[in-house]
């Protein structure tokens, strides 16, 4: 899932300072799971912001509302009756959700309250580890389920490089070498020949904006391509 982290309070206070009626919109999706922008986090941020304003003898001005998913327009409809009473919105959703919110309500400034950090896994409650850069050309099948794009500092497809030492990366002895792990995993599975297979050059599709259409829906959306 998408992982995010809340922006510092000072930054959020500064960007909301010019506005008098602020609506902080949470998201019940990924950011709830990673404890960055769900209903609880919305209430915590609002308390902090309102307290910060109160300390400067300014009135409470931040309201709260959490939708199920900011990345789906159907869940934004319920905001229509509330948004008109506010002159700006904070979005605690990922970048995708914040953008759809801004697109849905183009007359109201939308300010992100979290930084979207990665597609990752839950290591423990509150600890998340990046695992995927959404490159669009997954090679995990050949690399023993270890992603060289995410884990190798150089993003190498023909590693390891000369910097590997005792299975660690040259940038830090705390970072395991992705290609050392790939080799180990494939060796265990008796699939070392996978490394020798030539792969097509990566197109780095994540450098351009993509639209995903599932095969079963290709005909339906053919005209909108």
């Amino acid at each position, binding site marked *: 899932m998408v992982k995010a982290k809340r922006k510092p309070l000072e930054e959020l206070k500064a960007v909301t300072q010019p506005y008098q009626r602020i609506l902080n919109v949470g998201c*019940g999706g990924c950011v*709830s*799971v*990673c*404890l960055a922008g*769900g*209903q*609880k986090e*919305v*209430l915590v941020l*609002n308390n902090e912001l309102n307290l910060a304003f109160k300390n400067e003898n300014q009135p409470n001005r931040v*309201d*709260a*509302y*959490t939708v*199920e*998913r900011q990345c*789906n327009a*159907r*869940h934004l409809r*319920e905001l229509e009756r*509330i948004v008109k*009473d506010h002159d700006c919105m904070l979005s605690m959703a990922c970048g995708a959700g914040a953008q759809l919110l801004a697109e849905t309500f183009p007359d109201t400034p939308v300010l992100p309250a979290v930084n979207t950090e990665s597609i990752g896994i839950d290591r423990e*409650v*509150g600890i998340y580890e990046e695992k995927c850069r959404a490159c669009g050309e997954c090679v995990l099948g050949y690399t023993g389920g270890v992603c060289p794009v995410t884990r190798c500092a150089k993003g190498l497809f023909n590693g390891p490089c000369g910097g590997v030492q005792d299975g660690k990366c040259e940038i830090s002895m705390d970072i395991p070498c992705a290609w050392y792990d790939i080799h180990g995993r494939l060796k265990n599975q008796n699939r070392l020949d996978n490394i020798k297979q030539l792969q097509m050059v990566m197109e780095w599709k994540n450098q351009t904006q993509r639209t995903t259409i599932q095969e079963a829906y290709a005909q339906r959306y053919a005209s909108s391509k």
Partner: protein
Amino acid sequence: MSEPTATEPVNTGQIKQLLDQHKTKMKMALRVCAHCSLCAQSCFLFNTREQDPIYMPSHKFINSIGRLYKKKGNVDRQALEEISEIAWKRCVLCTRCYCPLGIDIPEMITLARTICRSQNVVNDFSAE
């Protein structure tokens, strides 16, 4: 519009207001559901939970928003906790459920969640 904390009593007036805003759709959905159970086949949770009927989309919306509607919003926190259990733990809102009669089941579940949220009854993602 500020949200209440978990220690506050349930604001049944607010729940009723939210129910009233969606009364037409809700009433229609509850009335036209023929209990045909065709929606069940489109729910991956139903299929992966040994086809346990409590995962049938119709069962989920009838026992969440349907319960709120029937009680006209006069529910206590315990009831909301039970409804939230259905709305969050038994449905991921993938929106893939299909109703041959056109009931928008995800919308009904969303409404149940919205009402739970309005009373600060939400799924605890920080639970160990």
